């Protein structure tokens, strides 16, 4: 958005308050509307995409102000076109990147820097990748979950090239509508910000609106289908309802897009673009031993 930045708030923050620190400024090389963000607790680093520069930036964990990234992945060999989401697989020391416009999932060594090729690239029509906005690996099952246009696609972690997903979570009972967003995996469970908003692009890169449109597309945030945060087992497949949901009027969520958690605190963090707010839920049940469906 207008003010590119990464802001850090105390986990216990509540109400209206200044961030404790902010990464912002020309030297940071940040750009607008960051759709993905990951923190590396082992190496104390922050990983973030800059889709407008087709780049992945890595900052020190304590970065503040106009701090420069310590590493940048960018260049024609990277295959990055419009990277919107990132995550980390610290077991295999890799950065995962979802490219929204290239419809691809790229994997780089965690310490990649410069114009480097990905070590793996999921892409092509058999992958069913479309509008990739969230992805995460479960090292225990060696599975990779990717939030695509209207579903979660499950691949083997090491899949490469134009390969079909081994499973998908999709269908009316899942509740996943258009544009599921940030996705995390914890304890064998997928946590998905099922935003349920449809962004229709009247301009698809050209200088004129597409002739298919007979009227201006509606505001995506007015989508009548409510969004929610849904939790599935990473081994779920098909038209399975979520194990848990967080949503509805009491939650204050409309179309949630961001999701993260503090497992040891039993807390789940959710951002919502409609309210321009971050909500914190205390839900230790979600982090209990996975497996059985209630």
């Amino acid at each position: 958005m207008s003010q590119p930045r990464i802001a850090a708030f105390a986990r216990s923050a509540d109400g209206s308050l200044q961030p404790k620190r902010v990464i912002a400024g020309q030297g940071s090389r940040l750009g607008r509307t960051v759709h993905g963000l990951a923190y590396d607790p082992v190496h104390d680093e922050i990983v973030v995409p800059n889709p407008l520069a087709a780049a992945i930036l890595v900052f020190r964990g304590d970065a503040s102000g106009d701090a420069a990234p310590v590493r940048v992945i960018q260049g024609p060999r990277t295959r990055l076109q419009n990277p919107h989401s990132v995550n980390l697989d610290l077991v295999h020391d890799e950065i995962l990147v979802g490219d929204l416009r290239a419809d691809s999932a790229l994997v780089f060594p965690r310490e990649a820097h410069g114009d480097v090729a990905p070590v793996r690239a999921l892409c092509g029509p058999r992958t069913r990748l479309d509008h990739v906005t969230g992805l995460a690996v479960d090292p225990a099952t060696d599975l990779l979950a990717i939030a695509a246009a209207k579903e979660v696609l499950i691949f083997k972690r090491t899949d490469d090239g134009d390969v079909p997903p081994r499973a998908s979570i999709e269908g009316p009972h899942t509740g996943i509508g258009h544009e599921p967003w940030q996705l995390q995996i914890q304890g064998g469970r997928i946590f998905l910000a099922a935003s349920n908003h449809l962004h229709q692009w009247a301009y698809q890169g050209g200088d004129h609106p597409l002739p298919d449109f007979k009227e201006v597309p509606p505001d995506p945030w007015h989508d009548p289908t409510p969004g929610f945060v849904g939790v599935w087992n990473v081994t779920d497949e098909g038209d399975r309802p979520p194990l848990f949901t967080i949503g509805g009027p009491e939650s204050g969520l409309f179309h949630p897009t961001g999701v993260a958690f503090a497992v040891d605190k039993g807390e789940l963090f959710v951002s919502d673009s409609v309210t321009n707010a971050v909500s914190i839920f205390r839900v230790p049940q979600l982090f209990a031993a996975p497996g059985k469906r209630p």
Partner: protein
Amino acid sequence: MTIRSLGFFLIVSASGVALTPWQGPKLAGPAPVRRIADPFPTFNGIALDPAADLVFFSDTNLKSVVAYPHSGAPGASSAAGKPLRAIRGRDTDIGFVAGIAVDPAAREVFAVNNDIEDTMVVFSYDDHGNVRPRRRLAVPHQAWGVALEPKRGELAVSVQGFNSIMVYGRKADALEPPLRSIRGPETQLADPHGVQWDGVNGELVVANHGNFRGFARNIGAGCVPVTPRESDDAEREHSGPGFRPPSLNFYSADAKGNAKPRRLVEGPRTRLDWPMGIAVDGARGEVFVANNGDSSVLVFRHGADGDAAPARILRGPRTQIDRPMAVAIDAERDELWVANFGNHSAVVFPRNAEGDAAPKRVVRNAPEGSPTVGFGNPQALAYDTKRDELLVPN
């Protein structure tokens, strides 16, 4: 009995929201234990109509357009000023709004939605509350700035992701296409933000952040490198992704297509640092820049080119300039207006102010000292386990 008190909250069979025809899970609770949000507007764009005694701001936090009296008593106000009018609500189609402009002759205000509404909405000066816009024009995704040239009857809209300027007719509506666009490698546009006409000198001025995705075509659904033609080093230089220096690009007002800028202000002496909104004082031959990155306002003389130092810099704690998003010039009252993103205020200076000067007036949209959360479409989150911090990007 609430769902929460049961200790779990999945797929309840009763008292959920009405779902038909949605077949997804019924949703009920839980309520958050904490919530981070800012209850006050956050100024973004600014547009003046001194004759009507009005100043309009776009507000990206509460998604509104607010109008205040343009005139005011000298001295810093400590109270939050109540806007004369606030256009806000679902029917307005105002979203994560950025640039704003006014048409004094038609008494209309234009506001560009940056993310992800992809529209420019037009209201009457007199509109208030949850009203439908007079016009709703589809614009490309990531439109940011808007400027009206009344003599030409044209609106210029900057588009970040397209690296382009789209020029529409003043009354463009719905799916009307632009009259022309400025776009292509020769334009040196890279993540354009502020855009402004210079009616005196027949120019269009654009502030660039420098983020550049490249012009390479997607020819392989992400399966192939995005390199442009391997044999063409010049094209590679122009087309490949990179971080370019921030710049001010000056085009002919008639520019279209892959037009080269007449001049390019760029380099370390310029002190450009995330240049956002710009204002042009054509009569005095000056260009004002809301220099967001270092919380300053830079003033360049008309004709500046290359690695030119600003003629004046307004910066320092007494200025109360904090992450400025937009600037505007009131030639009649000889004033400079600055809209702050960082501290719930707009500050007004003499037009020639420089250094660490205190403002003549302050327009507040929140009680003095109110914290500014500063969210702008937070679409992702991360948790920093080492510092027990929540990381929130815009």
